[in-house]
């Protein structure tokens, strides 16, 4: 069973914002709504600058689903977290719950009224007839129904952003790490929980 995921390779991302543009163009996202954005740390510091493209991560245990008071979220068979805009009340609980800031709220009206939530759909549309005008208007493009992958990942110029079945893209990333000989350190126990400080033992007789 496919489990759709995004994976962004911080070693490759060049902060071109092409993924952001592709998403906006593909889904005709309104002004003020950013389904995807590029986050950069250590901006301008030579050798330490890293960028990563962030959107909804389609969590396996999504907190937005847990906190939604009207239960408008659902997870598809491919592991994509989607929601029904007809049911959404725009309360913003999902925004507080999401660790990635994925839920977006269009600013409708002069006083910044919070509209219905909008977020990355993994280019999978929503609960309307597939490839219909209604679906496109509410949720954007449905590329999965056309046998395609999200526009952001497919057009990424450096292939930093990978999208698709988690197993497949993890294999691609693994091969990449083997080829370049580094990068695997960003995964695993050591990264998540810190590495123990173990200074090298001085050879016998050496002066300290």
């Amino acid at each position, binding site marked *: *069973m496919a489990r759709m995921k995004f994976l962004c390779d911080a070693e490759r991302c060049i902060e071109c914002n092409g993924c952001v543009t592709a998403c906006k163009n593909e889904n005709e996202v309104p002004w003020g709504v950013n389904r995807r954005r590029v986050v950069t740390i250590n901006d301008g510091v030579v050798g330490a600058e890293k960028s990563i493209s962030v959107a909804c991560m389609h969590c396996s245990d999504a907190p937005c689903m847990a906190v939604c008071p009207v239960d408008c979220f659902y997870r598809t068979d491919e592991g994509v977290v989607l929601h029904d805009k007809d049911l959404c009340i725009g309360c913003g609980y999902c925004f507080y719950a999401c660790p990635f800031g994925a839920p977006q709220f269009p600013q409708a009206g002069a006083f910044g009224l919070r509209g219905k939530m909008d977020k990355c759909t993994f280019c999978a549309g929503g609960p309307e007839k597939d490839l219909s005008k209604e679906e496109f208007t509410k949720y954007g493009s449905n590329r999965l129904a*056309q*046998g395609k992958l999200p526009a952001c990942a497919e057009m990424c110029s450096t292939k930093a952003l990978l999208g698709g079945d988690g197993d497949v893209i993890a294999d691609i990333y693994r091969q990449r790490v083997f080829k370049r000989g580094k990068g695997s350190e960003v995964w695993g126990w050591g990264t998540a929980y810190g590495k123990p400080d173990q200074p090298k033992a001085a050879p016998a007789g050496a002066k300290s």
Partner: protein
Amino acid sequence: MTAARTLMLAAAAVVFAVGLSACGERDQVTVYKQGKYQGKPDTKPWENDPAVSPYPGSKWNKGDKTSWESAVKTRSLAQNEYTRAE
């Protein structure tokens, strides 16, 4: 006298039990109960006819999940430029 003593013992037992219960520890972590989706049903991507799409991406048999997954997997593997360069 015996009845009064029994009553005293019973009262002491109750006080002891209540006192001990205060030492109990309850779970501090909230377990959220997932709600059930209340919205409209959605169609599966493999239930679409690939020929309907104005810009078809992959070919699969309508309604066949396995062939759709296989088509999407082929598309996913195209993201690996090492295989494209070989």
